[in-house]
């Protein structure tokens, strides 16, 4: 005689599963139950895909774990002798076909949704009304990000972008593999030397978006953070005009200070604020372009103006005169 629980159980499990899936959706964006709250259309569509998959996996999770717990409770030994056998059922071809076919259908439904969302995630919008996307080149270095804007301005670790404007980022690396990632503005794209990868964003809210390098890149991987500052178009234009003034400071903080300390007082790298090399332009340039031992070639690929900006900043702000006797 079939116990009544067998007919109720699937219904109950479905209800619980749907409730759980809904709770997940309602909770999305909070507490790490879904990717960060999106502020760009591509990130939004990724989150939609995440929620879509969650619904199916949530139901499967509840069904499988529910069946497992149900069977454990229902078919436990309960004092039966150890050698008492259950019914000797060796299988059922029809069941095998069913539980092969249903997952295939579910996966097809998931894949179809991904294909539906994919163009809106992957393809950079032509943005004709805005006169085409704003193209920013991202050069990843050990251990900082360098951003080059269309008119040649450069910033370090801080990408400035105008609000509601499509920004295409062309990503490459000057040394090892890194990965560009601002969670609220979309997914990860690796920075690989010799390759250029692309992604884009169109921020719908002014503010500061934080991210950090997603591919292990060496000893200061954890310090390789990036910030995207989204401001109004006019503020952005104003910032572009003054970008050159802060370049030396940005280079110092991004490429030198993480190892040598903000005042050059030393840290992971040696103290340099009293090192006369800071005043010897030619040798210093060679060192930062080529690296030495554990010091990476931080200035790999820099223009002469960039090197000069750093040298000027070092002379004015960091160099404290040679240490006595040293």
């Amino acid at each position, binding site marked *: 005689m079939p116990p009544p629980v067998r007919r109720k159980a699937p219904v109950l499990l479905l209800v619980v599963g749907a409730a759980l899936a809904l709770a997940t959706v309602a909770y999305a964006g909070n507490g790490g139950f879904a990717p960060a709250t999106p502020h760009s259309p591509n990130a939004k569509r990724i989150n939609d895909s995440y929620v879509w998959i969650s619904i199916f996996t949530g139901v499967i999770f509840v069904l499988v774990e529910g069946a497992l717990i149900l069977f454990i409770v229902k078919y436990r030994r309960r004092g039966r002798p150890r050698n008492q056998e259950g019914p000797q059922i060796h*299988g059922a071809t029809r069941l095998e076909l069913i539980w092969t076919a249903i997952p295939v259908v579910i996966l097809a439904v998931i894949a179809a949704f991904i294909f539906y969302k994919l163009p809106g995630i992957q393809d950079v919008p032509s943005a004709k009304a805005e006169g085409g996307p704003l193209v920013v080149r991202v050069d990843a270095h050990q251990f900082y990000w360098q951003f080059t804007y269309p008119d040649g301005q450069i910033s370090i670790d801080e990408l400035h972008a105008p609000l509601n404007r499509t920004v295409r980022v062309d990503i490459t690396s000057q040394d090892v593999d890194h990965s560009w990632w601002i*969670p609220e503005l979309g*997914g990860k794209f690796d920075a690989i030397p010799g390759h250029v990868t692309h992604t884009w964003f169109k921020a719908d809210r002014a503010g500061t978006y934080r991210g950090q390098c997603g591919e292990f890149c060496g000893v200061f991987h954890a310090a390789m953070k990036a910030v995207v500052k989204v401001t109004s178009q006019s503020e952005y234009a104003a910032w572009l005009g003054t970008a050159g003034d802060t370049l030396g400071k940005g280079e110092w903080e991004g490429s030198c200070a993480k190892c040598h300390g903000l005042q050059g007082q030393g840290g992971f790298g040696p103290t340099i604020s009293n090192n006369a090399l800071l005043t010897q332009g030619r040798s210093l340039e060679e060192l930062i372009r080529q690296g030495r031992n554990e010091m990476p070639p931080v200035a790999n690929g820099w223009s002469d103006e960039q090197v000069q900006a750093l040298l000027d900043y070092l002379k004015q702000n960091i160099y404290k005169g040679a240490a006595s006797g040293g």
Partner: protein
Amino acid sequence: MAARATFEPYRPDWRQGRVMSWITTTDHKRIGILYIWTSLVFFAAGGILALLMRAQLAQANEHFITKQSYNELFTIHGTTMIFLVVVPIFAGFANFLVPLMIGARDVAFPRLNALSYWLFLFGGIVLYFSFFAKYGASRSGWYGYPPLSDDMFSLGNGQDLWILSLHLLSLGSLIGAVNFLATIHNMRAPGMSWMRIPLFVWSIEIYSALLVLVLPVLSVGLTLLLLDRQAGTHFFEPQGGGNAILYQHFFWFFGHPEVYVMVLPAMGIISEVIPVFSRKPIFGYKAIAFSTVAIGFYSMLVWAHHMFSVGMPNFLNVFFMLSSMVIAVPTGVKIFNWLATTWRGNLIFDTAMLWALGFIAVFTIGGLSGIFLAAFPVDWQVTDTYYVVAHMHYVLFGGSVFGIFAGLYYWWPKIFGRMLDERLGKAHFWLVFLGFNLTFFPQHMLGLLGMPRRIYTYQEHGLWQAYNLISSIGSGVMAIGILVFVVNVVQTSRKGARAVNDPWLADTLEWYTTSPPPPHNFETLPYITSARPIRDLRRRLAEARV
């Protein structure tokens, strides 16, 4: 005067000494035991590395260990768990069990078998001694991507020793795999057709086939990397015209099938344990056997899902998404068949069964989180974050290691002739089950909050810190659970109950002989007429008695 006969005192052959007998052995059972013990020692070592990492991450801005050490820790932890624990311990199980399960006297090539063990041991020693190299051990991750692993960015010989170690380990695994294939194909007992071999043997067949197919590709990649480092070539160095992504293809062409190398034998163990402790035959023997073959086949077609963020052409992303999703189907088939096996059974919750049921519970979570990772736009958000760390531990700890413990509790009496203590065994299971979920479940959330892998510290407080702290506490609970296992082993090694031939009333041929088996394994063998020869025998005996 006749010469007096001299009576030399009896001196046993030098190969029969207590230590020398283990060093010179070619007995598959002793080599299996060596494999299992060595892997367990490395498991402890790799576990300690992980505990150190969790201690460092327990709080924001912690300074428990330095960043260089942290990078060595996760590199060697990953390499250890994969190459020195999971793969070789399955080689240990396979060594001990495959000949017994198929009714053979030994493996096909006993001396090669000994060689494969010693290559494994020395590979492991090389890896751990690399901590003493200048600049320390390798610190470019278990996958060793160039350019980070090139001579310019990885100074010292730690990386070279890592390559040497992996070469030794690969060679050992390759020899072992060829040996298992030859044994399974040629040495099955009379009547044991392919549809009558135990499912564990099926899993070892595919484990071995995959190793033979993909290990040479790893060796190629590592050799080219070594040449780049030491001979001035530029295979992977872009400034010399090389291609850094090429290495990733080499590595993952090996690396993803390797994942199934590590989980298929665990699934094989589960497929042996669940029917015995459900007092039923396995549901869908053929479906499980063929799904093992299917997983093996598809596992060779999914490697680049580790590389969705490198910017591959769209059609490749789509191909690898679909192939990765397809592999969920045979995996699901296995889970449904295990569940169906417990249906209407007489479930006996001995420790081995607890681990097997625990496997189903947690492996399901790992399988489902894998679907998010296969959908490549979602992967772009979660790849290289703690979400992947969580997913990967749900399949490799919740899958492989739970399977290993199920196998240890199940076959311990056969291997060592003594029963493990059930009370301590259950404490071990529940502590590890709880600790495992505490450690790894919150890591899903950490990844979604934006915490990348392989960072030695973080500045964020709030939820980041809360989840990290829970995770670190969980790792401590797991460690206590493992200590309970150690106590169990030590106590029962002297005082444990002697094991009879077939303590679990099992189905397969290894239970036909004594526990532990004699050097030649079997005096006689029954003619095999089904996949459950020992149950057939029990029934015939029962009928004869009536």
